[in-house]
């Protein structure tokens, strides 16, 4: 009798296990918590917070190394870039960054890190292999955004107070063009084909589409949410899909919404309600999900791209700011 039951149980268990096996693509989402001085680690499949790592003071922009082994962290109040080993979850060394690093971008070959120094009006270029500063490029007042072209030849730096997007030639490391945008530009993002640069103006409330060739503004996206104060619509983060879907996603700050934009018509198709003061966002590796950092709510919203719906909120630390997804 007992053997009969045990056999049955094994068969049932085996069927359950086999029936549920799907290829599971493991990935992690890292979130910098500006107030808590920590990095939250979220499992991309379970969508659970799995770990919280203590780092330096006021962590903001974060970026993965090309091999996915390290996370570069702007420790703004410590005036340095901390390098977190993702297997041991320990800070293994620091990179010199210039004062008050806020945001950064990694060159396509992973050898150069471009850092916006909010306080001293510079873009600092760091050699990640030599771990040294290459050069400091003076830009406008309060640089934040760093957008790198897909071909690795151009860098766009935004200056929040000067209200400009500066085009820097990476070969010469010199500014060649300066484009006036609307008030308080934050993020600059190239389209995957490298033909346009999208720049968000937080106080101006618009996103400027700059033709990457002529360096002129071809369109400005304006936002309107019924029942919502226009002044609460403050565009910050921009992520443009590279899966052929012709969609861009824009974080609207205190409006607590992500705008879904058609990249061919520049029309806003939809607004998705997330958490308070949503600033930055990043795709899952297959671009089927979008994660947003909601600063004032202290959580991360998970958006199902196919369903165009928010499916979950994950509590992280206080004032979540930057986001990176590995791989």
């Amino acid at each position: 009798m007992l053997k009969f039951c045990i056999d049955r149980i094994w068969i049932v268990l085996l069927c359950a296990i086999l029936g549920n096996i799907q290829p599971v693509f493991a990935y992690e989402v890292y979130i910098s918590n500006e107030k808590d001085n920590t990095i939250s680690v979220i499992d991309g499949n379970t969508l659970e917070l799995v770990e919280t790592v203590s780092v330096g003071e006021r962590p903001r922009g974060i970026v993965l190394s090309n091999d996915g082994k390290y996370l570069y962290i702007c420790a703004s109040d410590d005036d340095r870039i901390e390098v977190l080993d993702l297997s041991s979850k320990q800070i293994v060394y620091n990179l010199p960054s210039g004062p008050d690093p806020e945001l950064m971008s990694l060159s396509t070959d992973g050898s150069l890190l471009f850092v916006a120094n909010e306080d001293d009006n510079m873009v600092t270029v760091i050699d990640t292999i030599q771990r040294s500063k290459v050069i400091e490029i003076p830009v406008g007042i309060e640089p934040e955004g760093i957008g790198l072209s897909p071909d690795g030849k151009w860098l766009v730096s935004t200056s929040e107070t000067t209200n400009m997007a500066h085009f820097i030639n990476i070969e010469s490391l010199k500014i060649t063009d300066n484009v006036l945008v609307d008030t308080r530009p934050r993020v600059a993002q190239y389209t995957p084909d490298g033909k346009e640069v999208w720049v968000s103006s937080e106080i101006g409330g618009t996103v400027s589409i700059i033709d990457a060739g002529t360096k002129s503004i071809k369109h400005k996206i304006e936002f309107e949410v019924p029942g919502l104060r226009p002044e609460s619509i403050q565009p910050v983060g921009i992520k443009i899909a590279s899966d052929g879907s012709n969609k861009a996603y824009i974080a609207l700050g205190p409006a607590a919404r992500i705008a879904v934009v058609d990249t061919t018509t520049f029309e806003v198709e939809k607004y998705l309600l997330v958490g308070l003061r949503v600033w930055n966002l990043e795709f899952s590796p297959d671009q089927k999900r979008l994660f947003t950092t909601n600063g004032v709510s202290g959580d991360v919203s998970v958006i199902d791209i196919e369903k165009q719906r928010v499916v979950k909120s994950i509590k992280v630390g206080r004032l979540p700011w930057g986001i990176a997804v590995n791989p």
Partner: protein
Amino acid sequence: MNSLPLMRSVCAAAAILVCGLSFAQTRLEVDIIYLARQEQPLQPLSLLDMQIEDNGLPGGVLGLNDTQTTGSFLNQFYNLKPVIIDETADLIATYRDLVAKGGKLFIADLNAQDIQAIAGIEEDVLIFSIRAKDDVLRNEACRSNVLHIPPSRAMLADALAQYLLWKRWTRVVLVTGRHAADKAYAAALRRAANRFGLKIIEEKNWTSVPGARRTDSGHHSLQQEVPVFTQFKDHDVLLVADEQDEFGEYLPYRTTRARPVAGTQGLKPTSWHRSQEQWGATQIQRRFSRLADRSMTELDYAAWAAVRSFGEAVTNTGSNEPGILREYLLSKKFKLAGFKGVPLTFRDWNGQLRQPILVVAPRMLVTVSPQKGFLHERSELDTLGYDKPESGCNSF
């Protein structure tokens, strides 16, 4: 104030940045005159506070530096010319002379009386008033060529009252100082109390003339006098109207009942404070401290905002004409990034800059008004001060 090295580095940076510009536009000179009276600076009651000799103008210089980086790309060059006259000098004659010599854009670091004296002399000018908080200037005595940067007393009082209501600290008593400005502040507090449902249970006037700031045994007399003076019926908060800083700082921790002090001292509504580092304000606080070697005051902030407002208007219109700039400033297109979390705009019925108001304790930011929950059809910022339907201004 050692602004020369900073200005040099700004010029150097601008020169490096300018290489990508086509000088298609003709050069535009924007001359802004900073007009002020030399006066005895306010002597703070607390020995920890520094007397500020150069309040205001460094804010304008910072605004100039911030604005010129953009201007350099667009062939627009800003000049800030300080005209500081004596306490007793003839302001009207000086102003007439400046206007005759072509002065059109002014930053007026002047009291309400002086503003009223000069505003009507020439219509084709644009004046940013940066010091006067008088409500009358936003109402009956408003002028179409004067725009107001600092919050009015009504806006400050409303900001405080909203927070007190939010805290349910609604029973208040009011102590008013001996000066006309104190009485104006008290009037604003009364209006705010009425508006937001606070109950002023009792009022008293503080009539003593201030003595020495430091004495050999001063605390003994205060320890006796203040409790006697503050024997009020039960209340939640003691409001104080002491704009000249003569006695308000003596009240906290000495009152008969253990109650917080709020108003011109204690929990204080203000447009700017060193403790404010939200919304990117760290950067402007640091830039100012490096420039002026001290913290940014509300007058410095107002001067900065005035120059930036001129700059935004010039950048977006390509003009330095008062009429064209005024039209832009009062339009929906104008948005000033003032490090307060929302775009700052002008009220088109009286020229007042709408803005969030900080409510601060001496060493810490406590809250920012308008408080959550106060609704408005146009903008929550308009729950502070004189709203359009109640405005006494007919010049806009």
